[in-house]
């Protein structure tokens, strides 16, 4: 099944692209939420609004937008035209699609940190870099991890935004499932879907495991 129906390639492409997209999303969303919550600057609310935009736009519209935007290059200048049809544009779409969720969870995690917790560390003698490394970062670690996994799961199951954008160079599992289902080959579609469910569920389980051992549980390890 894997070789005959190109299942292996489909899974591998989907997996690799999502795997690349998710850390980029998680990092980017943490940077955005840190800027939005902790820094004061003029374009703050603009950045916050733009990072949320992808949530409001339907996936297919986003996909069509990318096709029109990049097939002739940015603004039809030919700039970045090479991006069209590559894996990179798929990764960009993945990132943009799951950025709002990550940013939202990052913002709420950072807002929950009482300002005085960081102040107290600062007061104890830590410089601002040390405060970030020993206080802020550990406190948003859970949100970062869950952002990572959410981004991964959203990317690997994404279909609406990429179905129009994908080229034969890349086979994505969701597109394959869709295709087989359309052709009436439900057994294959179902088999693929089952494996996809296993992958997404497995990654959530993995996240829980990681959180348990590297999260707030120093206590468990010390006892």
């Amino acid at each position, binding site marked *: 099944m894997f070789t005959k129906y190109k299942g292996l390639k489909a899974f591998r492409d989907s997996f690799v692209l999502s795997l690349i997209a998710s850390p980029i999303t998680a990092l980017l969303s943490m940077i955005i939420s840190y800027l939005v919550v902790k820094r004061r600057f003029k374009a703050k609310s603009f950045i916050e609004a733009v990072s949320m935009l992808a949530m409001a736009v339907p996936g297919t519209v986003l996909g069509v937008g990318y096709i029109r935007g990049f097939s002739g290059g940015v603004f039809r200048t030919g700039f970045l035209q090479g991006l069209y049809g590559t894996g990179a544009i798929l990764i960009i779409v993945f990132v943009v699609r799951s950025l709002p969720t990550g940013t939202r969870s990052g913002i709420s995690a950072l807002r929950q940190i*009482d300002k*005085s*917790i960081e*102040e*107290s*560390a*600062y*007061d*104890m*003698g*830590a*410089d601002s870099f*040390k405060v970030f490394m*020993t*206080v802020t970062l*550990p*406190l948003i670690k859970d949100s970062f991890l869950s952002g990572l996994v959410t981004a991964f799961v959203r990317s690997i199951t994404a279909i609406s935004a990429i179905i129009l954008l994908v080229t034969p160079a890349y086979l994505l599992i969701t597109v394959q499932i869709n295709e087989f289902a359309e052709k009436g080959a439900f057994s294959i579609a179902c088999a693929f879907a089952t494996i996809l469910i296993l992958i997404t569920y497995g990654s959530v389980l993995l996240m829980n495991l990681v959180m348990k051992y590297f999260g*707030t549980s*120093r*206590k468990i390890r*010390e*006892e």
Partner: protein
Amino acid sequence: MAKEKKGVRLEHISKIYQDPKTHKDFYAVRDTSLEIEPGSFVTLLGPSGCGKTTTLRMIAGFESPDEGEIYLGGEPINALTPNKRDTAMVFQSYALLPHYNIFDNVAYGLKLRKLDKETIRRKVMDILSLVGLEGMEARMTNQLSGGQQQRVALARALVIEPGVLLFDEPLSNLDAKLRVTMRTEIRRIQQEAGITAVYVTHDQSEAMALSDRIIIMEKGVVSQMGTPQEIYYHPKNRFVADFIGDANFLDGTMLRHEGGDGIVSVAGAEVRVAETERIADGAATTVVLRPESTALGDEGFFPVRVAVSSFMGAYQLYHVLLGDTKLIIHEYNPKGKKVYGAGETAYVRFEPGSAHCI
């Protein structure tokens, strides 16, 4: 234990904030100068918005003054960031690091000072036993009660042996009973450690119980500084008298001076009073009477009508009317004394010298 007691000196400090609604600048603290002796316990007391927390945060370095200079142990510290200042702060919200256990919370400042492991362990254990938390070092912060968390916050501040210990309303999140216990603890620990402490509160009984000196602030300026007794017995103005304890105010006229005391005419009676600043003969003045130093009797300085009379156990509470002015009287040990009912007329009595004029 503290390596060196340091004094704090503020010279003409001002801090200007912008009102978020009107965008107008206003002084949170205006031209404030004060001196805190090394090793003393000083309280900044005032209603909310009086600038006491801003003053404390300027000493800690979280805010920088717009005018003036702050000295710590004689050194100007305006240019230093909080992590470079020899101060440690105990926060209202405790501000413990939630991902660390108690030991790591207390050890945090020591680890930053790159002490060796053994010294850190010894110091942390010593300080935990001083605040009464021995055996708790492996617990996480969320496994502690509010009072215990505040002890950790105190231990964490003490362990780095700061020149000055700063408290930002540390007891306001605790229940009333624990507050009383903790303030006794704080005083004991401060004395044992022999450390300079600056304490911010809006609770006057807390300020009285803890402090060597109280600094009362109102609208960004210092109203009065002094020992708790000075402030209670000789308030400089109506605001201080009213803020510290209960006070009755009576309008009167200064008649003359006799042997250092003033003789004031109040409601037709001549009353001997103490004064904070000399008031000229013939000038209008206000007499401050504390409810607990006044009583009612069949004869006295002036007659009043009793409006409310209720038994409070330790004292009989009267609300009496002198014309339109309402006075509050606490007559202590009411057992065996004559009790007046509402509507009756009685005379106000007080010891000469317990009245004070401003």
